[in-house]
């Protein structure tokens, strides 16, 4: 736990030593602000449905941008050699970096809480439960995407390549839901279960089902395991 905490803290603070993290956060807030303000001021609708439906799409770019450098930068600078010769396991390196990446996304989500707070202050018949489950869904979605992004970052020295790999994998899980109409009915159940949007939308609607939690849990575990295995394989 000590190593995970140290790595996570170092990574998290290093995000704020470069302008990139600020730019990503500002970009995220501007886009979410736009999709929050539009229904509120144009059609006087005080809910977060539009916002919750757009954030998974924003995450498609936002999360690979955050995770792309987590390990690939270490691979490129050679600092992975230093890290790997310290008494720390690959799984601890991966977990530390995962927590740091997710931490930055949580900062973005925390800052976006201004939107539900505004609605609570000015809206009527506000469904706090739906807001809570919506944010829980976003958090799980972010964790799943981050695990994929981290795995992609372990594969290469190049941040751009890491970004593209994670974008493609995330896009695969993202579009499955939209591609169901092209899939034979016999297989649609499997594809629907694999679709990240299907599980996210269930949670965002306020249905916190264990099947959805198991889906996200296994996705996070599988990609973190792959990331850790990738680091171990590089020793061969």
């Amino acid at each position, binding site marked *: 736990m000590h190593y995970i905490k140290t790595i996570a803290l170092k990574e998290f603070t290093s995000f704020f030593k470069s302008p990139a993290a600020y730019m990503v956060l500002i970009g995220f807030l501007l886009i979410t602000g736009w999709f929050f303000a539009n229904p509120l001021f144009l059609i006087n609708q005080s809910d977060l449905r539009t916002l919750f439906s757009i954030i998974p799409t924003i995450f498609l770019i936002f999360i690979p941008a955050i995770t792309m450098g987590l390990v690939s930068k270490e691979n490129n600078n050679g*600092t992975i050699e*230093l890290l790997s010769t310290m008494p720390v*396991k690959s799984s601890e390196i991966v977990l530390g970096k995962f927590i740091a990446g997710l931490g930055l996304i949580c900062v973005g989500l925390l800052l976006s809480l201004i939107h539900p707070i505004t609605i609570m202050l000015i809206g009527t018949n506000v469904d706090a439960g739906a807001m809570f489950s919506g944010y829980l869904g976003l958090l799980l979605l972010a964790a799943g995407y981050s695990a994929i992004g981290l795995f992609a970052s372990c594969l290469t020295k190049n941040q751009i390549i890491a970004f593209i790999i994670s974008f493609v994998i995330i896009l695969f899980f993202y579009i499955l839901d939209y591609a169901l109409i092209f899939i034979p009915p016999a297989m649609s159940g499997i594809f629907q279960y694999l679709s990240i949007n299907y599980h996210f939308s269930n949670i965002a609607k306020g249905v916190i089902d264990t099947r959805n939690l198991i889906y996200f849990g296994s996705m996070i575990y599988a990609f973190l395991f792959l990331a850790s295995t990738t680091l171990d394989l590089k020793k061969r």
Partner: protein
Amino acid sequence: MIRLENLVKDYGTVRAVNSIDFEINEGEILGFLGPNGAGKSTTLKMITCYLNPTAGNIHVGKYNVVENSAEIRSMIGYLPETNPLYTEMTVYDYLKYVATMRNIKGKEFNTAFKRTIDKCGLKEVVAKPIHTLSKGFKQRVGLAQAIIHNPRILILDEPTSGLDPNQIVEIRELIKELGKEKTVVLSSHILQEVQALCDRIIIINRGKIVADGSQADLTEDYSNRARLIIQVDASQEDLTKISGVIPSAKLVSCKSILDGFNEAVFEYTPTNDVRKEIYNYIKQQDWTLLEFHRDYISLEEVFRSLTIEGGNR
């Protein structure tokens, strides 16, 4: 202290390290010499547990790299060839991070930090971001991270590469100092560096050890050649005849130096010392002898003969 047993490392179809065996004793400064691509860095990376051996094993004290990697990593301080650093951090933050990763915290960190910056001469730059430092200081920071946990073993992969002559001297002094209390394994392809620092030298070529011993051992045993230089008032033709009379003395060169005097260089195998015979021959010919001395083969020549000519002992 460190024992390598039949160590093999393959990168795909390329065998980078080919069945090497040697032992490093406690307190020794070992120089690991070899041309680029000989397998030096790969061997060091296996000792530090960064790479797993394809076959064989490495024992460090009572541990081995296959089963006790974490214990070995905590015993070793390592400076990789490229000296990777988190350049956006300050020297203090970086060393604190490394120390925390090495389980050094609180008061223990303060003591370790002070000892390390004193030893590495980093006092004036502790608050500076690493990317603003000169290459010499960056190398010192690299060394500082390798010794902050006071390891028993220090592994330095080409520690002076890319430094200017003054910085090289400074880093060498530092390594010498550290070598008084630690086992140091130092890789280099700079012969003078290894000569200046190491008690023992191992030469590796194409993944195999081609020489192992002290500098004197290497120049004596591995070259398997000795030289005798004489200056006499004999013609070059007369000097050539010596090889005919004493077949084990091979005339390597002959040049005129003074009026009527010539200098001849003979080579012979150290096990078959020809000095007495040549001296007697000169006496017999009644030549005037100006110079008669044995010339040692340099480490550079040994290195070249073992690594370029591909000679094995």
